[in-house]
């Protein structure tokens, strides 16, 4: 055991794409799907929910309280509760992670819309923007940096949390941790950690890039 190297490259080469369901590439693909679906669903639900919280202020306190409680629940707890409802499917991981994404994204949407300066809103009204067009053309674009900051946190945590799902048999790359533990074999564990961190850094970088593309005015202002 003591001579066992931390990484055995030949193992990686043999198991990268061996065609089976436990091939590293298959786990990676699974991991990506299970990590991104919750963020996508979360965003789709958080936008209208956040808008509603801004429109009807009294909604925000109770919503924030529910989000806070959800966020404090350990992922394994939600996974095991959903296990008795949705069984051994991807949903058992995707649904709880959607709740976690929501808990980050709803406050981000609300804060983002609140960050729109009042003069900007009033100018839009004065220029004749109707509420819906004002929202789509003025308020949401100005809110992009804050919403994207939330999206980055949600994405990175989601990518990392999927691996806990391995304990209930649906963990994407997390399955490598279980495999390595059971066989006292370092390589799968190191590969799993490295790929997850790489995936998170990559996704984070893409979101930063998206922010640059979506808010060209912030760069123009800095250059001026």
């Amino acid at each position, binding site marked *: 055991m003591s001579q066992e190297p931390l990484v055995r490259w030949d193992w990686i080469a043999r198991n990268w794409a061996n065609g089976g369901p436990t091939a590293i590439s298959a786990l990676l693909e699974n991991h990506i799907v299970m990590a991104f679906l919750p963020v996508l669903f979360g965003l789709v639900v958080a936008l209208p929910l956040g808008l509603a919280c801004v429109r009807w202020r009294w909604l925000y306190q109770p919503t924030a309280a529910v989000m806070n409680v959800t966020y*404090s629940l350990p992922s394994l707890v939600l996974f095991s509760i959903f296990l*008795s409802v949705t069984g051994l499917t991807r949903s058992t991981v995707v649904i709880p992670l959607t709740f976690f994404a929501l808990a980050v994204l709803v406050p981000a949407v609300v804060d983002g819309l609140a960050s729109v300066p009042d003069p900007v809103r009033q100018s839009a009204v004065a220029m004749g923007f109707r509420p819906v067009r004002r929202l789509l053309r003025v308020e949401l674009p100005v809110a992009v940096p804050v919403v994207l900051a939330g999206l980055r946190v949600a994405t990175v945590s989601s990518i990392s949390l999927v691996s*806990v799902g391995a304990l209930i048999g649906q963990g994407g790359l997390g399955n490598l941790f279980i495999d390595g533990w059971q066989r006292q074999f*370092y390589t799968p*564990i*190191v590969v799993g950690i490295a790929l997850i*961190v790489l995936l*998170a*850094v990559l996704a984070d970088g893409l979101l930063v890039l998206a922010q640059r593309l979506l808010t060209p005015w912030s760069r123009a202002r800095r250059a001026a």
Partner: protein
Amino acid sequence: MNFLFGFFGDASRWSGPDGIPVRLLEHLEFSAAAFLIAALVAVPLGMLIGHTGRGALLVVVAANAARALPTLGLLVLVVLLAGVGTVLPVLIPLVVLAIPPILVNTYEGVRGVDADLRDAAYGMGLRGRQVLFRTLTPVALPLILLGLRLAAIQVVSTATVAAFVGLGGLGRFIIDGLATKTYESVIGGAVLVAGLALAVQFAFVLLDRVVVSPGVRQVR
């Protein structure tokens, strides 16, 4: 609901070395130890960095990277490398995961204090260290507490996962239940951990009420 009665109604669950009270106590012990170590490292460091402004970039980058680290992988790797004999190896990943939220929030809290306030403190003749402890710390306290709360919740959750590598605590009910397909144990354990996490959350809300100066709270 039948699950819950089956779990909590069983008298044998409430005594012995794998009873609920013992597991709860174990869970609290590991969590408290890891949390205290992390706080002792991260709070002073965060205050120092926030006050002097040195090494700030490093902290932010490292903390972001730490968020991506998968808990389970880190846990399994550290315990395999260090051996299962003692509790100590399990504490390492817990501490590693608890430090970033405390460090970042303490740093942001101290750095974010109104510059006028800082200048006023110097103007009144306070020295560097006095400014830090008498002015900056009380004003930054809400954010420092937020960081501590996030870390505490993180530790309590991760300690659950740590049952997988042989640690005691409430996670045992979940992990053992999954292994033996005893779902009442899984659900019972999940409910216990959820209750503990909410209790931690609530304790920090209370702490916030007690230690944050009323003046600071008003401004918020």
